[in-house]
């Protein structure tokens, strides 16, 4: 029995950490946040050299064919570094959609290009976890898309993965006629989202139309988002502890005050069990199908709450500096705030968890 990461998974985490430490520090993140033309291509191509976009792509399509837990390990690192990268949309959601719903030709056409980092796919599927008034995409018999997708992840991609109202997936070129994206300024500046209007754009429907498949894609996405929050939360705790150990007030480092220490202990007490929950939820996606959806819900909703608590508490430990832009702590705070809402906020996800168990 072994509950935890394998040696290989430890090495994977280390290699991604090292690359991001060296190439995607906070200054680099700030540049992405300030420059709308910056797609972070250097970061994504560096991650591609490490195999990050290829993690979930089967070997037959030029990928590495690793597990959801491996993807979660990478997500932890990306969250810890508040990295701007299309990992969730391209390497997770699009790959899962193609694997589950694509036919042989579709997988062959897209997966190898995702794996080598040359193709970015944005994800227009917020409808799957919360339909909004005046939004939603309809696919017509002639293969054209009509309507509006809100909260489209990574809109500066080459292609969009669109979930229509029947939960079927479509691929559409971002520069096709009848596709009009508008960036939505939002609080987490390490991610970009857009509203995309489809006015008769020609799209390619993924082969399988079973709406259950879309929910499986969401399950995976939720675990990956939870893992991102786990990494971001751990980073905020680490920063809070380090800051408290060097900040002096009343002739003492503030880390020696119990009022401060207990805040840090409370964060650690929330994060440690969360780590086990996220790892198990990722494991269950591949190995324990009966529990996969419930565990994905628990991971997503629980990490939303833990992320909110840690974001607030770590900021408070930093005092006034935590509130400033100088330290940049808010990049993690906002990233966890973003993670809380996308693919379903905690109340909604808990209701789904109840339904999965026949309790609602």
């Amino acid at each position: 029995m072994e509950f935890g990461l394998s040696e290989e998974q430890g090495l994977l985490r280390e290699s991604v950490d090292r690359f991001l430490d060296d190439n995607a520090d906070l200054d680099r993140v700030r540049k992405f946040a300030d420059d709308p033309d910056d797609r972070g291509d250097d970061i994504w191509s560096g991650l591609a050299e490490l195999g990050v976009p290829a993690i979930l792509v089967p070997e037959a399509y030029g990928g590495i064919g690793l597990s959801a837990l491996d993807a979660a390990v990478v997500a932890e690192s990306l969250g810890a570094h508040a990295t701007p990268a299309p990992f969730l949309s391209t390497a997770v959601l699009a790959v899962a959609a193609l694997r589950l719903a694509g036919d042989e030709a579709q997988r062959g056409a897209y997966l190898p290009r995702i794996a080598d980092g040359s193709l970015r796919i944005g994800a227009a599927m917020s409808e799957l976890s919360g339909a909004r008034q005046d939004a939603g995409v309809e696919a017509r018999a002639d293969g054209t898309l009509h309507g509006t997708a809100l909260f489209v992840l990574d809109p500066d991609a080459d292609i969009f993965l669109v979930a229509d109202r029947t939960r079927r997936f479509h691929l559409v070129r971002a520069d096709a006629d009848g596709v009009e994206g508008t960036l939505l300024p939002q609080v987490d500046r390490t991610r970009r989202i857009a509203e995309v209007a489809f006015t008769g754009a020609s799209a390619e429907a993924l082969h399988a139309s079973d709406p259950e498949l879309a929910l499986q894609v969401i399950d995976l996405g939720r675990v990956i988002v939870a893992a991102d929050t786990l990494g971001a939360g751990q980073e905020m705790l680490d920063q809070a502890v380090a800051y408290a150990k060097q900040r002096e007030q009343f002739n003492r480092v503030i880390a020696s005050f119990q009022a401060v220490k207990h805040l840090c202990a409370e964060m650690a007490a929330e994060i440690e069990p969360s780590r086990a929950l996220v790892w198990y939820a990722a494991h269950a996606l591949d190995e324990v199908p009966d529990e996969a959806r419930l565990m994905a819900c628990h991971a997503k909703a629980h990490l939303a709450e833990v992320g909110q608590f840690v974001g607030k508490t770590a900021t408070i430990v930093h005092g006034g500096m935590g509130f400033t832009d100088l330290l940049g702590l808010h990049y993690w705070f906002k990233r966890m705030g973003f993670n809380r809402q996308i693919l379903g906020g905690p109340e909604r996800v808990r209701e789904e968890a109840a339904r999965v168990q026949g309790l609602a």
Partner: protein
Amino acid sequence: MDLSYGPQYDAFREEVRDFIGKHRDQAPKGQGIRSEAVRNWQKLLIQHGYAARTIPAEYGGHGGEPDILKARIIGEEFAAAQVPGGLGSQGISMLVPTLLELGTEEQKRQFIPPTLAGEMVWCQGYSEPNAGSDLASLRTSAVLDGDEWVINGSKIWTSTAHLADWIFCLVRTEPDAPKHQGISFLLFRMDTPGIEIRPLVDMTMAGNFKEVFFTDVRVPKEQIVGSRGEGWYVANAILGHERDTLGDPNAALTRLNRLVELMKTETVDGQRAIDNPAFRDRLIKIQARVTAMRFNDLRVLSSRLNDGSTDTGLARMITKLQATELRHDLEGLGIDVMGEFGLMYGKGPHLRDQGSWQNHYMYFLGLIIGGGTSQIQKNIISERGLGMPREPKAVIPAEH
């Protein structure tokens, strides 16, 4: 990630199930710890290796090899079958491991076999009215007079004192030494002249806890574990054992499942509690926490199995804090879904589940405090887990 125990353990689990199936009629049903039924059950369990499993046979144990997974399987199967396992008294869970490590050969032979058999019952004399979280400031004194220690002082929170034959007790023997170095660990009979026991009623209105008063209690000088002044270190080995047992995630899961049943049957305005979205949301929130603690526990277990190859120090340190707070919240939800019925207590009508929700809600508040309060836990987590410095020592006497 590999969560299977392996085929040899699957076979062991079957063995345990067979045993329980065959012998469950002999299990005690609520008889007290001094009953013959309890002693016979304990004897049977030791014989089969389901109690005192790793304690050498020469001291009355089963003499098996240590095996964390087998111990886990035994615990899981007895819990699942709702059959009592081996005795878990303070003598067995705390004193025996200490004697095995630090007792003399004579002490091991004298005390371990009858303790394991349930024939010798112990209570623990640690906390004092003025020594709680700061246990090392304890003042109960023992002065050597010829071949005897003469003990004066008092202990508090001494559960089962009225049932115990013996006490293991921390006393101050070196009043001039620094506080941690002035303590000794003594063993003595509870019927020694000069011992008075008074009940200490807690908020559950149970009188399980006691206060114990010592007036010139005379104890043979060789009834000490370790040397004079080493008692603090002897006791600390035991505290570790106690903390490990407080966060049983399977017990929380059992209660959670019971809570779901309660929510399916309890109705207000004709609506089941489970159909009330606010209650349902609270339930699922707690379910996620229970689930997270179960896997946290598996992670710690796995690290112990693999010789601590991965660092799970923090995961272990947070267990007492989180598990007790979680149980308190879980039991509290049980009360809330019952509304006014959640106020019923004692022997009256309208009790649900024998009033266990109300009782556990208060009992777990006691456990949040006992065995190292949540605040002490946070000190441990931040100092040992996160490397934050200790609060500087300041002498601020209380105002009178």
